[in-house]
């Protein structure tokens, strides 16, 4: 492999150089919390931050986006659609779990008929991943076969000591390197050794994580759909669920959205926003809802991730084990508990 390197305290030069031609998104602190936002002078990359609050999916699938503008006048109607993304951008600092999260969304939004707005962002966006430095007790990406030491994307990178080591995986990644001549240097044999040591240290940490033995046994394509659906344990599992939807908003793989309207006074904007199957109005129609109880809504979310999604997408799961829901649920419910209770592994 062709390894490049840059000192961590030089990273701002890298961001500045890339920012000349494109936006660079990275985890940025705002009011004490980190979320992906465009880099600007003065913003420092903080490798010790494990997770942004919202996952990196927000860059490709924003929480809210306009799709159409309508103007009505008397009987006539004018329809204008919003232009999809047409400028290149880079997203830096994504960990393996969130990179895999993009693949989960790709299967939904890029399958025929593709979502034009998502597709344009995927085409124009380049992903620079960084291996997570300090996985936490809530991490379980390994459960879903994710190799945290190979975070993927267009360029993947590792921090060893005070240096960031980078490797291009795609043509998009090579192109980024070509813009960074003089800013990143070629790495040598000693550097490769340093990276290897970092990786083996990381592997040891991953093995010791409390959820490292959690498996997907009992779920997925081969699981009995109605058997799983009708398990009596759903009731107690969901008993304390508030239906707040926090789990869905922090989730890198939750795909569900609503389409709503907003009257600006000048025109009517139709926009798309993240939505949550945990909400009672998610499936509410004029004549009622097929999921009137929170238990049913709770079950829907986990059945979707562990059974329905795998059924529809070649057995792939719609969870990447990032652990955000374990950290954020106000009543400590989460997918790991569901999997322990209903799955084959104890």
């Amino acid at each position, binding site marked *: 492999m062709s390894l490049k390197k840059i000192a961590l305290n030089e990273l701002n030069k890298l961001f500045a150089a890339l920012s000349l031609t494109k936006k660079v998104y990275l985890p940025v602190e705002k009011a004490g919390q980190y979320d992906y936002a465009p880099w600007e002078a003065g913003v420092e990359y903080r490798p010790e931050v494990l997770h942004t609050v919202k996952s990196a999916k927000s860059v490709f699938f924003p929480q809210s986006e306009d*799709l*159409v503008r*309508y103007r*009505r006048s008397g*009987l*006539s*109607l*004018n*329809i*204008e*659609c919003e*232009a*999809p993304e047409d400028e290149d951008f880079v997203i830096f600092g994504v960990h393996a779990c969130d990179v895999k999260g993009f693949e989960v969304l790709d299967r*939904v*939004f890029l399958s025929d*008929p593709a*979502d*034009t*707005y998502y597709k344009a962002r995927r085409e124009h966006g380049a992903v620079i991943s960084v291996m997570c430095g300090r996985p936490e007790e809530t991490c379980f990406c390994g459960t879903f076969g994710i190799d945290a030491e190979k975070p993927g994307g267009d360029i993947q990178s590792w921090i060893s000591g005070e240096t960031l080591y980078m490797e291009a995986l795609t043509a998009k990644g090579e192109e980024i390197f070509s813009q960074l001549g003089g800013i990143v240097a070629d790495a040598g044999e000693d550097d490769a050794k340093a990276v290897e040591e970092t990786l083996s240290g990381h592997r040891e940490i991953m093995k010791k994580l409390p959820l490292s033995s959690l498996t997907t046994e009992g779920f997925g394509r081969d699981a009995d*759909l*109605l058997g799983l*659906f009708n398990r009596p344990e759903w009731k107690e599992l969901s008993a304390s669920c508030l239906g707040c939807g926090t789990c869905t908003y922090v989730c890198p793989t939750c*795909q*569900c*959205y*609503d*389409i709503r*309207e907003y*009257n600006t006074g000048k025109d*009517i904007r*139709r926009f*798309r926003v993240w*939505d949550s*199957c945990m909400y009672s109005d*998610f*499936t*509410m*129609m*004029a*004549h009622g*809802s*097929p*999921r009137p109880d929170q238990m*049913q809504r709770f079950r*829907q979310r986990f*059945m*979707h991730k562990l*059974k*329905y999604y795998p*059924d*529809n997408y070649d057995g792939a799961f719609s969870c990447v084990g990032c652990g955000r829901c374990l950290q954020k649920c106000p009543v400590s419910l989460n997918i790991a508990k569901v999997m322990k209770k209903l799955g084959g592994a104890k």
Partner: protein
Amino acid sequence: MSENCTGSCVPGMTKDMLVPQLAVVTEIRTETPDVKTFRVESPDGSPLFDHMPGQCAMLTLPGSGEAMFSITSSPTEKGYKEFSIKRCGQLTDALHAIEPGQEIGIRGPYGKPFPVDTEFRGQNLLFIAGGIGLAPLHSVIDYVRANRDAYGHMDILYGSRSAADLVDLEQIQNVWMKEKDTNVYLTIDRPQEGWDGHVGFVPAYLKELAFKPDCTAIICGPPIMIKFVLQALIEMGFDKTQVYTTLELKMKCGIGKCGRCNIGSKFVCKDGPVFRCDEIDELPNEY
């Protein structure tokens, strides 16, 4: 299914599936006190899109929202699409208040149609509808009428709360009842003055009529009616593989991505809305 944007949209860009095309409501017929039929055409008179019986489309009246409706007209009517819509919510209230000439947005078609050109071909057909449930079957019935020789005998059993609530009564009496090799049976829930036809609920009338299970049954109506009709058909010797229905759940995208119309691993918007009743047995009871 995608097309390039024209007019005021971004030149050359592929229009997203979520963006509707412009259409105009050219005719509005009042069918019952709470059902109107809307005829929708493209502003220049060219066909909006091709559909097959059982498929749906999203109608939008900006400011009042967007929702999925089954296409009532037959695909053999190329020049327009019709939608029989019951007033029961925010958008349908607003649609009931518009006048002919109103421009609206439309996108579609969505979903899998009834297998009119395959499994239904050559079969005797038994249509069973309740209330506004006639809307999705209307398209099938008119398609069968337009290709009459390709199908066997046709029975249509249709019921509603009252005589005034029978959608399309005029066409049923003047056209369907005169169609060759076709019997139409109407019923209303309670006796009323001036009605000398059958009185009683659809499932009970169905048993009374004692159809032989030598046909394919196609049912649509309120969920409770579908349930009892299906029970009655099983008692009458029908197999679930002979029975089709069409389901309805809340929808936003129409293309299996927004995540709300699933029943188990199936999305009603793209894997349905038409299901054979034995397929429904394999799904969780969440519809």
